[in-house]
């Protein structure tokens, strides 16, 4: 049965790698994001890799009115509808400290925007009796720390949302994979000091696809981040609050 992936935030390198991987399986891709010129290039690329459908489509996590045209477009495709969420934004914590109103944008991009989008498509997925949602969060959402706790809080909210959505869609035969990448070699992390064990976007995309096939619930990628985060989560708060990691 043919499948169609709506890929939110398809200009990111992780999303691009994932779109290519599903395109090579012959799935359709609707590449959603803001930079239409860039999305069209990725759409052309995915078409050459074997995607059944490959189109660029406008999406802005902060603009609710951009959601409906995507819902409408995907209805034209038969088979299962899948959604992969790669959106999110992480302004430096100092910028947020200087201008707290930036928090609204971070939460919209990383949590409420995609959550609202998924909420809107969930009934159609239920009606079709399945489909898969991939939600890319971050290890930053596992514990708030001084360097990026606003971004972390938004991703934590998104993770909790995904857990609830999983509970809901499972009843209809659907599935939700929560992905928590560690450091990934993307434009967002390029040139930032202190990166280690950095994974390539292709590696992350391959891990996600494997998790989709195996119906895993929550994955860390690369896998060892599960243990790194286990340690970080186990540090008692009275010690953690004095640390800067």
């Amino acid at each position, binding site marked *: 049965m043919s499948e169609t992936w709506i890929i939110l935030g398809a200009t990111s390198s992780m999303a691009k790698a994932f779109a290519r991987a599903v395109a090579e399986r012959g799935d359709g891709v609707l590449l959603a994001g803001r930079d239409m010129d860039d999305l069209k290039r990725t759409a052309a*690329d995915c078409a*050459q890799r074997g995607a059944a459908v490959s189109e660029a489509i406008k999406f802005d996590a902060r603009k609710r009115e951009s959601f409906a045209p995507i819902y409408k477009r995907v209805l034209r495709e038969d088979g299962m509808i899948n959604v992969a969420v790669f959106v999110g934004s992480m302004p430096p914590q100092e910028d947020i400290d200087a201008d707290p109103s930036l928090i609204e944008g971070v939460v919209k991009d990383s949590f409420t925007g995609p959550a609202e989008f998924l909420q809107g498509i969930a009934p159609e997925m239920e009606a079709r009796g399945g489909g898969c949602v991939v939600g890319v969060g971050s290890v930053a959402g596992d514990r708030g720390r001084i360097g990026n706790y606003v971004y972390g809080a938004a991703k934590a909210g998104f993770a909790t949302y995904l857990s609830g959505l999983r509970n809901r869609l499972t009843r209809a035969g659907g599935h939700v994979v929560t992905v928590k990448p560690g450091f990934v070699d993307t434009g967002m992390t390029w040139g930032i000091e202190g990166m280690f064990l950095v994974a390539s976007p292709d590696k992350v995309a391959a891990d996600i696809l494997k998790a989709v096939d195996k119906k895993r619930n929550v994955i860390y990628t690369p896998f060892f981040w599960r243990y790194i985060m286990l340690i970080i989560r186990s540090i008692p708060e009275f010690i953690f609050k004095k640390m800067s990691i």
Partner: protein
Amino acid sequence: MRWKTADYTGWGRVHRAKGQLARPERESTLEALIAEEPSPAIGMCRSYGDACLNDGGHAIDMTRMDRVLSFDAKTGVIEVEGGCRIGELARLFAPQGWLPAVMPGTGFATVAGCIANDVHGKNHHGIGSFGQHVISLTLLNGDKKQLISTKRSAGLFKATIGGLGQTGVIASAKLQMIPCKGDVMMVTERRIEGWDEFLAALDSSKATYTVGWIDATAKGDDLGRGILEEGETGAGLVPKPKKSRAIPFNAPGFALSKPVVRLFNKLYYSRVPKSGRTTVKPISDFFFPLDAIHDWNRLYGKRGFHQFQCVVPIAQADALREMLERIANSGLASPLAVLKRMGEGRGGYMSFPMEGYTLAVDFPNRAGAEYLIQSLIDMTEAAGGRIYLAKDSVATGAQVKPMYPEFADYQAEVQKADPDGHYTTDIIRRLDLRSKS
């Protein structure tokens, strides 16, 4: 876009650079970058010497600009972003009956890198160089964006093909691919017992793809012994290429010492039966045999290695034989040595190919290697030949300039395109290719 301070090297790892790198992922970012800070582009850094280095300066890493923009299954015309890798194109399109017209020895090379070095492949004698199959390309230079071809800005185009990135950044290119029968290769391997037999075999080979492996440690009667490989594309079913392995650390010095290399070469030679053999291989195994071993350059240890590649005219084959004798006597050669007949096809002013025989040999970076290569370069010049800038790491400008008869045209076009020297790289400084003589 953020700049990152990074150490990077050419594939031979003898030359090193430290500089500011940016790695755009979108065309809009790339264009803004070049308008703001015009800098030379680098790709997968598969050139051996310092063609891909800009020590102390800026460079733009193009590896994330790697998409296929269009493809016409009827004509085989494809348009790709500059950072797209050749091996990826072969993987995607060979099953549909199309291959890049020219493929270098590694599939990791980017299309823009293949253009900037005007690379050749195992079919050069029949089809010419990479640049001859470029229909047009988009060149970014400061805030200018130009579509150039053999018809539009022909001079600039010829200075860009094989031009070592001195005219700007190749953002995308339209290429003519060639039809192939499928994604497997029928490969015939044959033992060649000596030098004269090798030349005769190369001259009479009718195959589309031909390459000779040569035992650069063999002396006397065995001088020039090796294996001739001839290949044709075909359709069929073969096992998938083996999973790639990586060399995890720098090998110790003795790994490629004289006795080890001699023994290896002997075994490698005897691997092919006396009567020869024909096998069927996945396309990548034939074209990119070393790509299955990631970071194989680490086999040469942390001091790295040099590659010497020259071409000499047909009539000067004896000069090449003398070079090979010198190499064999030096005891410095590694197992990687290749002999091939080239056609005359070349796409740009600074393109390497000329009709003749080309010899490529790797040397670990040991005492005597540089001296040996210097003398080989002089012998090449005396024979009216040419050395390949994508491989070179030791030549001087005085040696190189006379080998390239269109150097003055190149220099004039580059001067026009980039009068302030924004795109200058380490090789350009070493060979003094930009200053007015």
